[in-house]
């Protein structure tokens, strides 16, 4: 073993054995994933006894002879650094969990991860099947928080998660993705680009070791890491029984702040955030709300929107679009003909006031 891997894999044999065990039992845990939290709180021997079924002896035998050095080697080969819960550089926030992950596998560096989550990171999570509205809001939160120097944590899933990561990367902010399976592989495959770009400015984190295939219980286990790592969890869109809602509840139980972005009452995707709001979650209409919630009076102000600097026509045009008028109606309200109206909209878009979604619909930038 080289000195380099010894330095980078800061994990004790017990914790590496635990990680091996989770990978070994991955298939056994899937059918009982509705009880995943209490199961993960069990010790190694109890866990084997609880889920291995007929293979208890076989797994227990293998468990006693795990090659810890090989596990370290696998991490190093996959380009992962690792840190276990017995090590001082393990993130303190995770120790709030009853069952903190034994080992965190990190692409991008353990020390870098510590820097990223040192102040007040914010989780932005939500539905995979998000609507254009949700995607726009998630990307907007990512941009705003990224600009304010706040690390955004999410799960790199399709939909809201990816949009939030992309928003942060778009303004060269810092973001951490907590993955369900091995951190060295892009899951879902459509997030290959994010998987490549995130470690350049942030980090990819997972509980499971390299080479572990993704299974459904891992998403639930992953959610607890997102909730614990973040100072605040914001849910953008999600149905009543969604994973995002589970994450938010975990965050609440851990004493973290919870925020929710309201949506149209007609959409099922609004059910999750609205339920959270009813339960006392903070109302989030934009990145500034998140910053205010985190830092109170000391909150950094996002770059001033300088509405006063806009000409009266552009101001009127922006108001009309904000009120939900169509392009032609908005131009008419601002007293502009089609040419000046379209030019004005382009000008507002260039200035970052408006954004254009699918179907050419303008929305006010968040």
């Amino acid at each position, binding site marked *: 073993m080289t000195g380099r891997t010894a330095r980078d894999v800061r994990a004790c044999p017990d914790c590496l054995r635990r990680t091996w065990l989770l990978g070994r039992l991955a298939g056994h845990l899937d059918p009982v994933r509705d009880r995943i939290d209490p199961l993960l709180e069990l010790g190694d021997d109890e866990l084997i006894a609880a889920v291995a079924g007929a293979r208890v002896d076989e797994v227990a035998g293998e468990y006693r002879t795990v090659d810890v050095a090989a596990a370290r080697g696998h991490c190093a080969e996959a380009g992962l650094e690792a840190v276990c819960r017995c090590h001082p550089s393990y993130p303190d926030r995770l120790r709030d969990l009853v069952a903190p992950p034994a080992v965190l596998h990190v692409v991008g560096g353990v020390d870098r991860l510590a820097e990223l989550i040192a102040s007040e990171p914010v989780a932005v999570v939500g539905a*995979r*099947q*998000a*609507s*254009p509205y949700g*995607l*726009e809001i998630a*990307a907007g939160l990512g941009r705003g928080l990224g600009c304010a120097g706040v690390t955004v944590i999410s799960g790199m899933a*399709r*939909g809201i998660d*990816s*949009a939030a990561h*992309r*928003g942060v990367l*778009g303004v060269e902010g810092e973001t951490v993705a907590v993955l369900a399976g091995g951190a060295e592989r892009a899951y879902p495959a*459509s997030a290959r680009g994010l998987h490549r770009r995130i470690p350049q400015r942030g980090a990819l984190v997972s509980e499971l070791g390299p080479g572990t295939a993704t299974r459904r219980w891992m998403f639930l286990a992953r959610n607890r890491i997102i909730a614990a790592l973040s100072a605040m969890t914001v849910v953008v869109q999600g149905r009543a029984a969604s994973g995002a809602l589970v994450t938010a509840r975990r965050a609440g139980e851990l004493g973290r702040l919870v925020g929710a972005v309201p949506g*149209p009452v*007609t*959409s099922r995707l609004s059910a999750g955030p609205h339920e959270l709001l009813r339960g006392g979650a903070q109302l989030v209409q934009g990145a500034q709300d998140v910053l205010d919630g985190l830092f109170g009076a000391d909150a950094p102000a996002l770059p001033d929107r300088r509405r006063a600097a806009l000409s009266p026509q552009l101001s009127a045009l922006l108001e009309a679009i904000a009120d939900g008028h*169509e*392009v*032609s*109606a908005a*131009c008419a309200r601002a007293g502009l*003909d*089609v*040419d*000046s*109206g*379209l*030019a*004005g*909209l*382009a*000008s507002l*878009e*260039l200035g*970052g006031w408006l*954004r*254009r*979604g*699918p*179907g*050419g*619909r303008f929305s006010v930038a968040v």
Partner: protein
Amino acid sequence: MLAYVTTFAIDGVQPRQVWVEVDIRSGLPTFTIVGLGDTAVRESRDRIRAAILNSGFKFPDGRITANLAPASLRKAGPGFDAAVALALLAASGEVPRDGLDRYAVFGELSLGGELRDSPGALAVAEGARRAGCARLIVPSQRAREAALVEHLEIVAVSSLRAAAAVLSGGEPPPLPASRRATPRPREAMDLADVRGQDAPLRALQIAAAGGHNLLMEGAPGTGKTMLARRLPSILPGLERAEAIEVTRIHSVAGVHADGLIEARPFRAPHHTITASGLAGGGSPPRPGEASLAHLGVLFLDELSEFQRPALDALRQPLEDGSVTIVRGQRALRFPTRFMLVGATNPCPCGFAGVDERCTCGEADLRRHQRRLSGPLLDRMDLLVDVRRPADDELRAPPRCTSAAALARVVAARERQLRRLEGTAARCNGEMDVGTVRACVRLDARAEAELGRAYAVGLLSARGRHRVVRVARTIADLEGHDRVRQEDMLLALSLRQRSGVEAMVLS
């Protein structure tokens, strides 16, 4: 006895001279046609025999050999019937052989001896003039079309008997008048029929003025097709040479009725069309919709529903202005300089950006975008969103008429022609990067807006080039020598966007 008659084969849209030689000598009665003909040519023996007998002529006894020279050229279709029949009559002495070399003959025969309507008469007439023939015998249905060629006397006949009478020294019958009572019905489509739709109307004008390809995005039933159909009404009329070019293509394809086509073509193929239907092909090769839209508008409704190979087949036509089809050892060229107008729903369900009815997720939007993207989208300079007009707009008077818009378009095109003198481009839409650099000047504020759009990531390098071309056209419509800030902003608002990526990434 031996006799010769000149006729023409149609090779793509070009005529190729064919000499019909008929030899009759004594022997067992047989009738063979040689010279690389297809089934229709082989079957013409039976048509010719019946037509000659039913016209009251004697069908010669003996060994008849007809040769279509050059023997290496593949000949297809029934258009050689009349030429073979007349050569046969000349060889058997039923009509005089003297002076036959001044004639070219074209047309299909019926069993009763009538000359049938045959596609491609204009191309044949052009070939006859080029070959130095003095007179061309064509079916009377095609007379006006063939008569478009100057310095060639057209003999329009309706039967083999009448053709033989002319060859025997009779007076040719007068040319028939046009059958069409109301010419150019498409001109009846006017922008004045459109209510509301300010932005799409503006985009149509810009597209027409600069020859820019246009993509319209909008929910079902918002009027995309209605708008596209009115684009030819604001395009400058065809010059005579152009009109003849269009007529020749349509005549060869057999989709043209009569006389000269004066309106710009508008073709709207259904989205189930195949690659060869769109770009041309088949055996013998026929012009596709892209060629039928030559010098006009090719409208692809439901762009995302077209098969990928069909859209890919448009790549060469869009880039080169022509399509080349290779068959055997020969390559045929069909001209394809058209304006492309596409229409598409913004998302699979069609309601993205309209209201919360849209049920499409990010993955659906991505898939939709992927179906659209590619070489075709690269060629679309303009993108405009078409919305349902508001109630008060529907009741308002029309915003503009085609006549007024056409006048502005013509003026803008003249400015472009002057500026683009000495370059390969004829309009702003045809400018390449070098031409844009040489010919387009932006004022300082327009330059600043363009730089800002590029810096914030709203534009790719290629998108930037497209926006400059469109801005130049807008300035031409306004009569500005330099592209000004408002021209640039308008061009930016009508820029091609790449949906989801633009939404999430930037």
